[in-house]
Structure formats: structure tokens, C-alpha cells
């Protein structure tokens, strides 16, 4: 493994924020033409290390070598010049600009004589890039018109188009559908053949073993190990990441779903999103809601929660019709929605961990108009502990938390409202395997206490492993309901694509 020189070496890198350690003395060696997976729990320091490499943060200590020569990627621009491109975990496209303008931002093609942007060339080049990669996105569309997964693909194309030597992908598949994941993997294979080095971060184990050559593990900001992927198995890897044995990901199935119907949705329609959707959730049940991206699952959840108005149909809580116009009304009726997009709808980034956790239940930590600060601290600390949120302090701003820990904050906020109906939209997106297990346990525990859960998920193992019943949506319509016994990945997929085949 050490015969050929490394393409990139990071040696003894440390980073402190306001005197608090994020990573200390970590190493990472990337070989040419390989995919190097960087693994670790939420907050282990993966993104921080990559931000150092791509010039966003300056390391407190350590050296970086590219092809044996020391480099100093002090800004993203300099890092790009050294041949390091990064796809960020938290996407930040310029929504008002077109796809092509985003891709060519800062390096727009110019007419040779006059220094004006050559738009025709820009659009043509973008179109060619997409065609080469078999993507069907219109380069002239504005970014704000794209779906999350399309935005992700654009960012991938952009990073690849710099023709860099090292390409960092920080959780690129967290919002991609299967088909797009395959497209990404074929892009990665092509990059490998061209001798690039790819650093790949993901919490999806199956992906890691499919595409990576080397695997480096971090834990609590420290370097743990580097191995060839073929020398590792999933158990060993998880043990290195978590620091202990992790036996079962999913809790044992011994739930007793009551006959009592907690929530029933009767023929609700919201034009453009979904039509005539009906289902029921029983007390103590986990109802899996699945389908392809864009099937209308998120929209159904938002409609129940009062974020999208429904045109017809009704929603009944314990048999009583309820009228929900705004999230406020839903919360009053004991419904909670952990939204899919944590940055847009979930978190107030400049507020602290504590303030975000209590945001939806300020009533319970105040008397009259006044806040009860001590109660609030207590409540927040309890949540931090029980969800194992990795934060230096309850007053840390959530914007400085790792992605997975941010997700836990959103979950904590909603658990605190004591809902009877908990709707989870992609609850484990970006969450590490240990924390996932914790969340599954928690879901199981909640149902035993009489909560009902609607879980929207694109992750098959999760849908199959957790649901008591599975509803498959396609193009805004319910295609069928499966019991966990009869459900298989194939059956779900065939229902999810049924509409598409017919057309």
C-alpha cells in the first residue's frame, strides 16, 4: 500500500474552535485512482477535516502534502488551484441564478476580444457536461426551480468539472434517489480511471463497501485507523467508529399495535402534489410511508401538519375531524413533524442548542409570559443527554454543530412537544449508525407508550426494519399497503414505479 507515493497526505492536523478541540492530530493519506472513505460518528470531525483541506478553515496545526510537496490551501480558491474540489454536506447554491451560471461561477467563459460573458458557450458547455453524464437537467433553469436531488447532482457536476486531482464528497447521496446514486457511482468510477483521488463521506454502509478502496476512521476528533476496504467487514468497521460492539440495528419486533385508530386521513387532495390519499394510523403503530423521491410523501406530511392547504378530504384525530390551517393548530392537537430539510424549516441557525430544542414548547418552560430559565436549562440538558447530542455546551450555536447532530436537535425539539402523532420525514438522514440505532430504539419505545408514528423514508432497510405497515405512494397516489411479512424490496419498488410503467 505504501509502494506508490500518495497523491495527498494530511499529517497531524488539529483544529480548535474558540479553544475547543474539533479534531486533533489526524492523518489521511489518499492514493491516486482510489476512493477513500472517511468514516466516523456525527461530530467525529470529518467535515471539519475536509473544510481544512478545501480552504474553508485554517488548521491550528499540521501539514498537507500534494504529490509530496507541501501546500497551503488558505482559501477555497487557492485549494481549487491546487486541484482540490469539494462537494459540501450543506449545499449552498445561488438560487436566483441558472444552473449553468452556478456551475461556471467565478470562471465564466468570456468572448475573446471583449470581456463579456459568453452565455451561449456557457450553456452549450453545461449541456455537454450533462449529456456526457447522462443527466437531464436544463442548464437554463434557475436553481430554485430544481428539486433537492437535482441541486445535489448539479453540485456534483460542478465539483467534477474543475478537473481537480482530489475531489471531496461530503455525504453526496443523502438526498439522492437510487437511480441518481447509480449515476454518481459511474461518475466516480470514471474519475478513478482518470487517476483522481476521491474522498467519500457517507453514513450508508452498503455504499461504502461498494465503492471504496481504502477506509479511514475518525472517532471524537481523533484518528483511529486506515484499512483496505477488502480487509474490513461491517462489524469491525462499526466497532472502530463507535468504539464498542453494536449488535442489532433494529429493535426486536414485539410491539403490540392497538386496534384504536389514532389518526385517519380521508381522501385528501392538494392539486399539484397528491390526490385522494387515504390511510389510517393506529395507536402504537409505526406506519411507513415510502415511494420514490417526488412521489408526494413529504407533501402529504406537510398537509397533515398545516403547511400545505388541502382542497378536499378530511383529517380525523381519534375519530374527530380536526381543522388544521397552520403548524400551530397541528401542534395543539399533538401532531409533530420532523421536517426533511433541517436548515430551511427545522433550525434557527443563529440560536443556541437549548433555544432550538425548546422552541416549539416554550409554554412548558415558562409561566405566563416569563421564561423559566432553570427549567429550560434542565429540559435542554435532559434532551442532549438522552439523544446523545454532541455539543460542547447547551449554549453552542446550532450552526456550529455537525450535520448529524443538527438533525438530532430537530428531533429533540419535536419530542419535547409530547406529540401523540409523530411524523418523521427522513428521520435518519445524515445520522451515523450508532445514533440511528438509538433513534430506532426511541421510536420503538415511543410506540410502546402509545404514540403513533408516520415515518417517511427512502431507505429500504429502514422501511422494512421499522414499519408495522407500509404504504407506497407514486405520483401523488396511494399504490398499495403492505404488511411487514409480505413486504420486500422488490414489491415496494414495483408499487412505487407502477404508475410510471403504465404511462
Amino acid at each position, binding site marked *: 500500500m505504501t509502494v506508490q507515493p500518495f497523491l495527498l497526505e494530511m499529517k497531524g492536523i488539529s483544529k*480548535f*474552535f*474558540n*479553544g475547543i*478541540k474539533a479534531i*486533533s*492530530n489526524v492523518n489521511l493519506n489518499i492514493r491516486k485512482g482510489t476512493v477513500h472513505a472517511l468514516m466516523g460518528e456525527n461530530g467525529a470531525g470529518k467535515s471539519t477535516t475536509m473544510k481544512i483541506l478545501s480552504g474553508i478553515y485554517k488548521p*491550528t*496545526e499540521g501539514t498537507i502534502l500534494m504529490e509530496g510537496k507541501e501546500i497551503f490551501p488558505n482559501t477555497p480558491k487557492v485549494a481549487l488551484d491546487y486541484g482540490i474540489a469539494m462537494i459540501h454536506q450543506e449545499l449552498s447554491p445561488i438560487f436566483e441564478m441558472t444552473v449553468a451560471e452556478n456551475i461556471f461561477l467565478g470562471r465564466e467563459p468570456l468572448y475573446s476580444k471583449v470581456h463579456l460573458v459568453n452565455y451561449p458557450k456557457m450553456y452549450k458547455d453545461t449541456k455537454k457536461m450533462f449529456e456526457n453524464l447522462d443527466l437531464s437537467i436544463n442548464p437554463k433553469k434557475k436553481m430554485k426551480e430544481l428539486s433537492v436531488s437535482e441541486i445535489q447532482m448539479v453540485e456534483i457536476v460542478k465539483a467534477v468539472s474543475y478537473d481537480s486531482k482530489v475531489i471531496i464528497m461530503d455525504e453526496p447521496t443523502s438526498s439522492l434517489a437510487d437511480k441518481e446514486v447509480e449515476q454518481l457511482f459511474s461518475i466516480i468510477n470514471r474519475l478513478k480511471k482518470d487517476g483522481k483521488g476521491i474522498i467519500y463521506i457517507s453514513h450508508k454502509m452498503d455504499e461504502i463497501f461498494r465503492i471504496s478502496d481504502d477506509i479511514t476512521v475518525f472517532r471524537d476528533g481523533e484518528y483511529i485507523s486506515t484499512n483496505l476496504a477488502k480487509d474490513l467487514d461491517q462489524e469491525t468497521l462499526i466497532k472502530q467508529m463507535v468504539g464498542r460492539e453494536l449488535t442489532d440495528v433494529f429493535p426486536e419486533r414485539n410491539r403490540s399495535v392497538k386496534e384504536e385508530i389514532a389518526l385517519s386521513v380521508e381522501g385528501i387532495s392538494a392539486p399539484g402534489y397528491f390526490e385522494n390519499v387515504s390511510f389510517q394510523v393506529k395507536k402504537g403503530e409505526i406506519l411507513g410511508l415510502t415511494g420514490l423521491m417526488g412521489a408526494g410523501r413529504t407533501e402529504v406530511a406537510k398537509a397533515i*401538519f398545516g*403547511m400545505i392547504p388541502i382542497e378536499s378530504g378530511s383529517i380525523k384525530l381519534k375519530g374527530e375531524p380536526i381543522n388544521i390551517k*397552520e*403548524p*400551530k393548530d*397541528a*401542534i395543539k392537537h399533538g401532531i409533530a*413533524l420532523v*421536517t426533511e430539510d433541517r436548515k*430551511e*424549516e*427545522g*433550525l*434557527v*441557525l*443563529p*440560536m443556541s442548542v437549548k*433555544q432550538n430544542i425548546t*422552541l*416549539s414548547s*416554550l*409554554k412548558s418552560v*415558562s409561566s405566563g*409570559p*416569563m*421564561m423559566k*430559565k432553570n427549567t429550560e436549562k434542565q429540559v435542554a440538558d435532559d434532551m442532549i443527554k438522552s439523544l446523545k447530542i454532541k455539543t460542547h455546551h447547551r449554549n453552542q450555536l446550532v450552526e456550529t454543530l455537525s450535520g448529524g447532530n443538527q438533525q438530532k436537535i430537530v428531533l429533540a*425539539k419535536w419530542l419535547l*412537544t409530547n406529540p401523540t402523532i409523530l411524523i418523521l420525514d427522513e428521520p435518519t438522514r445524515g445520522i451515523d449508525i450508532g445514533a440511528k440505532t438509538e433513534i430506532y430504539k426511541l421510536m420503538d419505545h415511543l410506540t410502546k407508550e402509545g404514540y403513533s408514528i408516520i415515518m417517511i423514508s427512502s431507505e429500504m432497510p429502514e422501511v422494512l426494519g421499522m414499519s408495522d405497515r407500509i404504504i407506497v405512494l407514486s405520483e401523488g397516489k396511494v399504490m398499495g399497503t403492505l404488511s411487514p411479512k409480505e413486504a420486500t424490496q422488490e414489491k415496494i419498488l414495483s408499487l412505487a414505479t407502477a404508475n410510471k410503467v403504465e404511462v
Partner: protein
Amino acid sequence: MNSQLSTNSYKETKENSNAKFKHLLSEYGILLALLGMAVALTILSPNFLTSANMLNLFKQVSINAVLAIGMTFVILTKGIDLSVGSILAFSGIITASLVVGNDTNLLLGIVAGLGAGLFLGAVNGIIIAKWKVTPFIATLGMMAIARGLTYIYSEGQPISGLSDAFLVIGTGGFLGIPISVWVVLVVFIICTLLLYHTKFGRYVYAVGGNENAARTSGLNVDRTLMSVYCISGLLAGLAGVLLTSRISSGLPQSGISYELDAIAAVVIGGTSLMGGRGRLWGTLVGALIIGVLNNGLDLLAVSSYWQQVIKGTIIIIAVLVDRKRT
């Protein structure tokens, strides 16, 4: 191994204290700036640190401080209130008209002035929260409307001959401290309680930090927005009453461009125009910095043209320094 560990931990603590110092500096830097200015002026001008000058300075600052405290609420929600100067004039003229002569109802005059401010603030709030007009445009409109109403009501004439009792607000003192300064202190304490010890305060920060998330979390965003413009209007009304009493007449042209000083105080104080980040004590310090600057430059006989240049420069520097903080 052992020695390596100890060097590591040594580095850690050094890094630690260094970073903490930087953090403190950026957090409380404006206090240092204020102190520095005061020390410099004390050395440069014998007239600066005299009780007469101090009383004068605090009285001057009090008007802007009251406006700026209200403005802080608005800016924290990612808004802006350009109408405070005009509302100040409107409230001032209403109060003045009701306290002409010595046998008038003082309380009625003051309450009417405050009420006028609150009312116009509420109109701002409705336009912004219910009709979804951007705060800049809504309050720009209100700036013209309130100014126009002031001229209409006063027929363009100043109102003088106010009751002696009313003038005490602007000229009198309590325990050797001017009443207007007491007013600022009371307003500051109430608003600090409101912002940091009530649910409402939390709503203000949440709405400014991420309106979408606030709505999804079940907060009443519209009511929060309504409230902050009401607070700003009410405090502009209060400032109008204070100013009218101090200059012992109602002037329809008073308060022109006061909104700019108020915004400057908020920004110098470290509150972000992007919403959701900021602090009320900073605004008070910001208002003091502007006040000391005005006062000091006067004492040093700097021409008023240069004063403007210097003030503008300080505002820009404050924002640049502040960007390091966040």
C-alpha cells in the same frame, strides 16, 4: 509518549486562553472603544469630563437611545423602521398641542403622544405582517405619511407656550440625574426583560433567525412582527414627548434623519441587519458612542462637515469589526 502528551496539552491550554481572549475582545470590544474615546476626549478637552457637559451629553443621547432600543427589536426580526423620525415629530406635535398653557391635562397630552406613536407603529405592523409589504418600503411610506400628517396637524407652524409642568420632563432631574436619562434606564430594563426573559423575546430572535422554521415550530410569526413595529412606534412616540419637552416646543420638522442615527447605534452595537443576531446592551453602548462622538467633535471644534465624514467612517469600521465576531 508521555512527553508528547504533555507538550500537546500545553499547546492546548495556550491555544485555549489565546482564543478565549480574542473571543472576549470581539464580544466586548465596543465597550473598550467607548472607554477609549472617553479617555481620549478627557485628555484632549478639559471641558469633556465636566458635570455640565456630561448632563448635556446624556440628555442628547437619550432621544437616540430610546429610538434605537425600539429599532433593535425591529432589526432583530430582519426588518427596518425608517419612519421613527417622522413618528417622533407627529407624537411631539400632538403632545405639544395638548399641553399648551398651564391649566392643561398633562397626562392626557403625554398619553396621546405615546398613543399616536403606538398607532402609527401598529399600522406599520399591519402593512408588514398582514399585507406582506417589505419593511423597507412600508416604513419608507410611513415616513412620508407621518411627516405629512405632522405638517397638516400643525399647519406647518411650531407649537410653543407649553405648560411649565410639562417642561420639567426635559429639564428636571431626580437624584441629580436628568429625568430623560431615568426614562432611558427604565425603558432599557423593561426591554431587556422583554427580550431575554420572556417568550416574546425568543420569538423575536427566532423570527429573525429563520422565519420559516419559526412558523413550522408553531410560533405566531405575524403577531411577533406586529409587536416589534408597535414597540418601535411607541418608543418613537416616547422620544417625541421627550424631545418636545426638552426644546419646549413642538416642531413639525423635528426628528428628520433620526432614523439613521438609531440604525447606526443598533449596528455599532453589534446587531446584524440579517436578523436573529444581536444584543440590546450593545445598542445602548452604540448610542453612547455616537453621542460621545458628536459631543467630542463639537468640543474639539471639528467642522460639522468633517463630523459627518468621521461618523460614517466609524459606522463602517464597526460593521467590519463585527463581521469578525460572527
